[in-house]
């Protein structure tokens, strides 16, 4: 192992890092910040912006870009030498001379790398008196993306994302030199499925989302770790909330699943939360056939009264957007209390049964030799998975598409059109044949099919040979695979010996949380042996097999309760005698439902979701439920209470603990599982990363970083992980060479807002206060502030002004105080 380590010295600190590590990453490991713009750990380094220049001893050119330089034995690097500081300042000055400096109206202000690094490393003033370069201010380059070319610093991240990651035509550089600008090919619009990622990647405010422009400032927001509620991949997101309103969703780095990217389908899914047609109060259909608003009590009463005598005439259909907790409480309502066998989730037809273990994982694409799309089209159904497949292709995988013609076929090495199940049985027969043929040793680097314009081949033999030569095979199937005649694919793959995680079969499920619902038994067949604990706890529960979802939709039960699903949109659907729907937005079922209940959306309550490859993840509540909406678990709980149950769990945490104690599949699960990042995939925006204290550098052991990717100590908005270093109440990271504003404040005998123990009191009639969340208010100068050696009448805060470096020499303090004493106006108390 020692051979793979290289000893280097950064700023006098010796360390050993693996060969091939970039200087910028090596420095980050010991908490030394090197600013970057063009560098991004998920893309090839280009060395374009030059802001990461560091001084390396004994080099022909002493100033080396840290983002492209790999460590060499006994390298001595200085990131804070005079030369390095000068070069960094120089690059920042160059970047700013043509920058419009319109931070006050820029969406990025507050989470802008240009702003942050200028403040830290830039010169305080400008020497540029010439005419700045001007462009038309906003240019819509795509459906959702707006470009401000004046703000652009030409780091090329967006261009490289389109080229390298999305591997499609998108944003390009137009013209050259000082006239360079980002744009699209003439006459084209940038309408990629992944276009939103460039907004997140942009280190400045050049690329902005149409939905977010001028909507919010980063410092007004709170950030919550969420899970995407659009696809079953379990893509990690950050939910940004301003005044209890979700203003945007961003990707949250999870190497296991999303690699930090987020498709537009998920990115803009928050628009539904605050849309005008949200169902916000319970409604009951009156005699005239009109839905009229009623109270929760009335609505629930109506439902309870409608329960038929024969319990098997009741059906419960559960939408897969609901969490595991929702499913569990509905199961308790259905099988436990109503004693009906009919409790299923809406995509149960796709289920392979509980006996099948699939070993394929999303991250299996990375190291796969062959990715075999079997009758499935992940590019259409699971956008985020497409990017993962492309990552595999960039590494070494060959893409083989069998069956229908997927949108990915332009990237495929082999394509066979036909009936997937027939082709698969032919293929597996061929593969099982013994072969003595020697593989040829020499393999030329594969011509990339997306460059060659799609290399496809009907050459069956070549395809078989390709698969036979592959060590890691990931078979991608999706949707209703029994319907496609592929129900045995898991066993076949096992026979072929491919079932070694993370490779094997990955079944891309419809909906969001079908795997979660199956793990707690929301399928027609009830597994009596596996659920003995449950049967014991819920005495007298129904353990028969029930109706399928399709049968329920066809009106096989007298009464149907549809939670977060739309049964009447199914083919051959028929309204049952009494139909209850809990929904977020009106749909076909709402039009005919007898009782409509307002359902909370996923950001409005805590919940656990299990992704299509079995990853258990936690979604944190970000906002309060809108209107009178309630989460499904809560509605189910209310109905249970009305049916005479007691001792019911009172919150998602308790529900999930009950899940852990009753269900074998999730035995022992509690919310505590999610407190250890790494064990499960869930991670809360990490305090330690955001305000990483400088460690004792003399005794740094060499170790793999916990999260190999983007620990955004130095970075803000453009990082994959999280924007807004200036969370309220969090300590900003110490800046090398710059004094801590709090120290300055202390020196001046002032009270730094971050040192305040209690938030300033709100004026009368202030908005409702939610934990830790202080709305902007003008606080009178007489408001109660903690006692301290604060000079009388002084309310200026030093060093935390809106991104302004305030250097106040101590000698001037008295002068300032005098002027403040004269100025009796109040100051904004809570603003940062």
């Amino acid at each position, binding site marked *: 192992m020692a051979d793979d380590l290289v000893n280097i010295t950064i700023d006098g600190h010796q360390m050993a890092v693996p060969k091939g590590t970039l200087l910028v990453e090596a420095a980050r490991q010991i908490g030394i910040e090197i600013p970057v713009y063009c560098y991004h750990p998920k893309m090839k*380094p*280009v*060395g*374009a*912006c*030059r*802001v990461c*220049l560091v001084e390396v001893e004994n080099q022909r*050119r*002493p*100033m080396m870009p840290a983002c*492209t330089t790999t460590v060499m034995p006994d390298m001595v690097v200085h990131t804070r030498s005079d030369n390095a500081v*000068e*070069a960094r300042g*120089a*690059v920042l*000055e*160059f*970047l700013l*001379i*043509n920058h419009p400096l319109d931070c006050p109206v820029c969406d990025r202000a507050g989470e802008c790398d240009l702003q942050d690094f200028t403040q830290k490393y830039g010169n305080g003033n400008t*020497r*540029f008196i*010439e*005419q700045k*370069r001007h462009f038309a201010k906003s240019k819509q380059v795509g459906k959702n993306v707006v470009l401000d070319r004046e703000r652009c*610093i*030409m780091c*090329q991240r967006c261009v490289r994302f389109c080229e390298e990651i999305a591997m499609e035509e998108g944003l390009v*550089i137009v*013209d*050259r*030199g*000082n*006239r*360079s600008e980002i744009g699209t090919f003439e006459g084209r619009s940038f309408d990629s499925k992944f276009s939103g990622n460039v907004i997140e990647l942009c280190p400045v405010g050049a690329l902005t989302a149409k939905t977010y422009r001028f909507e919010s400032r980063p410092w007004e927001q709170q950030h919550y770790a969420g899970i995407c509620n659009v696809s079953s991949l379990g893509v990690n997101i950050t939910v940004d909330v301003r005044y209890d309103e979700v203003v945007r969703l961003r990707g949250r780095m999870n190497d296991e699943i999303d690699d930090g990217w987020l498709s537009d389908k998920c990115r803009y899914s928050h628009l539904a939360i605050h849309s005008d047609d949200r169902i916000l109060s319970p409604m009951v259909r009156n005699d005239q056939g009109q839905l009229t608003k009623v109270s929760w009590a009335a609505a629930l009463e109506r439902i309870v009264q409608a329960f038929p005598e024969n319990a098997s005439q009741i059906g419960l259909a559960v939408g897969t957007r609901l969490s595991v907790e929702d499913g569990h409480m509905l199961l308790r309502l259905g099988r436990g209390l109503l004693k009906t066998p009919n409790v299923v989730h809406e995509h149960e037809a796709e289920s392979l049964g509980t006996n099948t273990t699939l070993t394929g994982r999303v991250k299996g694409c990375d190291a796969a030799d062959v990715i075999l799309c079997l009758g499935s089209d992940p590019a259409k159904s699971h956008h985020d998975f497409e990017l993962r497949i492309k990552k595999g292709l960039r590494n070494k995988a060959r893409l083989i598409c069998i069956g229908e013609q997927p949108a990915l076929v332009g990237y495929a090495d082999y394509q066979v059109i036909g009936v997937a199940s027939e082709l698969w049985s032919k293929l597996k027969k061929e593969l099982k044949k013994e072969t003595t043929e020697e593989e040829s040793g*020499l393999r*030329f*680097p594969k011509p990339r099919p997306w460059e060659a314009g799609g290399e496809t081949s009907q050459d069956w033999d070549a395809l078989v040979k390709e698969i036979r030569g592959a060590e890691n095979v990931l078979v991608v199937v999706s949707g209703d695979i029994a319907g496609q005649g592929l129900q045995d694919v898991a066993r076949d793959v096992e026979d072929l010996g491919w079932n070694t995680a993370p490779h094997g079969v990955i079944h891309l499920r419809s909906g969001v949380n079908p795997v979660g619902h199956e793990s707690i038994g929301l399928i027609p067949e009830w597994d009596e042996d596996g659920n003995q604990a449950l049967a014991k706890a819920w005495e007298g529960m129904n353990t028969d097999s029930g109706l399928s979802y399709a049968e329920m939709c066809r009106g096989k039960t007298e009464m149907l309760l549809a939670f977060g699903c739309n049964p009447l949109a199914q083919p051959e659907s028929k309204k049952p005698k009494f139909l209850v729907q809990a929904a977020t937005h009106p749909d076909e079922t709402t039009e005919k439902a007898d009782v409509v209940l307002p359902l909370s959306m996923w950001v409005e309550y805590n919940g656990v979701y299990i992704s299509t490859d079995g990853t258990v993840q936690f979604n944190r509540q970000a906002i309060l439920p809108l209107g009178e909406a309630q989460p499904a678990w809560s509605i189910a709980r209310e109905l249970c209470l009305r049916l005479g149950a007691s001792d019911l769990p009172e919150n998602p945490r308790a529900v999930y603990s009950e899940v852990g104690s009753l269900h074998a599949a999730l035995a022992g699960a509690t919310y505590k599982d999610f407190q250890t990042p790494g064990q499960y995939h869930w991670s809360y925006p990490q305090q330690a990363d955001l305000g990483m204290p400088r460690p004792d550098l003399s005794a740094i052991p060499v170790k793999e970083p916990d999260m190999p990717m983007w620990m955004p100590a130095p970075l803000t908005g453009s990082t994959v992980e999280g924007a807004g270093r200036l969370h309220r109440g969090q300590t900003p990271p110490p800046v090398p060479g710059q004094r801590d504003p709090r120290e300055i404040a202390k020196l001046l005998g002032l009270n730094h807002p971050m040192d305040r123990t209690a938030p300033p009191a709100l004026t009368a009639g202030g908005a409702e206060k939610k934990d830790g969340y202080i709305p902007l208010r003008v606080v009178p100068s007489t408001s109660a502030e903690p006692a301290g050696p604060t000079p009388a009448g002084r309310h200026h805060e030093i060093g935390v002004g809106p991104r302004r470096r305030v250097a106040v020499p101590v000698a001037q303090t008295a002068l300032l105080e005098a002027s403040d004493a004269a100025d009796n106006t109040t100051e904004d108390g809570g603003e940062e």
Partner: protein
Amino acid sequence: MSTLVITELMDIEGIDGIDTYVKNKGYEGLKKALKEYTPDELIEYVKASGLRGRGGAGFPTGLKWSFVPKNPGKPKYLCVNCDESEPGTCKDRDMVTYLPHQLLEGIAICCYAVGINQAFIYIRGEMLEGYEILEKAVEEAVQRNFLGDNILGTDFSLDVVVHRGAGAYICGEESALLSSLEGERGFPRLKPPFPAVEGLYACPTVINNVETLSTLPAIMRKGAEWYSSLGTERSKGTRVLCLSGHVNKPGNYELELGASMRHLIEECGGGVMGGELKAIIPGGASAPMLTKEHLDVALDFEAIAAAGSMAGSGAVIVINDKTCIVKTCLNLDQFFEEESCGKCTPCREGTKWLVDILTRMVNGHGRPEDIDLLKSVCNNILGNTFCPLGDSATSCIMSAFKYFPEEFEHYAHHGCSILEGKKEMAKS
């Protein structure tokens, strides 16, 4: 008159046609190489000749070839850099126009030595005439089996493709040339990997200048020893120098390395035109200026470097004393600003800033602090850029500050050129 190596045949009528070229011992060098040398011996032979690259850096050619892996399991390529765009340089154009077959012969020799079967000539887009001549020459050479399959009965095959650039100075930088040839944006690439290991289409690639390759036939014909007897201790042979500016007889002159600037300007160029000598740019627009004190500096790589400039592409630009140096700097920097590719920040923003400041000064709005500002901006560009283009943009200004600081001072304080200032004083 010194010995002619590269331009020896240039004056012969019809030498661009293959018949005349063959009649004048054309392709003899290639025949000799194929018949008498193995590829490895040939590389040693070129090493022994002491030939150094003529593109600007002066890297030993044989050594460069020897870096290419022998059996990489991938194709290998030769790229001929004929994207001659450096202001003042015009040698490759003549070599392509008048002696296309000499270049092709050189290409064939090089490819045989390195084991290449595919060569590209990346010719500057504006050289339409040269392109047409080269196309014709390749066709002729293929017909006579000097190129193509199984050249002259051996198992060595070579295909030559002539590719026109689209008008970017940066594409003369070798890695940008490769990007451009692959159909990508003409941006320089990260090194390492170096082209010898991973160049065109990620395969081992040799990139040589036209002049370098055009020298090979003569070396093969007359011997490495003969060639290495020419020139100085470390700079062997001859080189074509492009004399331009204020001289009576501008043009391309082939001189043995070691000849002095005085010899070039006074003997060959017929002396300075229209005034006294003020400054010399000895290696194209990227090279720092020298003054008349440096007239006796020899025009070889080491001597010019010792004098504080560089031999570069061999373009000697003569500037007389009626010329305003500030305006000269502006002119040169306008070129670099126009040609900056825009990839890295210091070059993209810095060149524009330099031009802005110089333009303002020349227009009479200079300020005393502009002197320091110019120096500082130059310093901030220097050594911080991705490729040497940014550095090049500062070299004229930095050297002008060194030798003619008063001209900048005059602009900064009086708002006009020192030359105009003198004129006004003479009137009064």
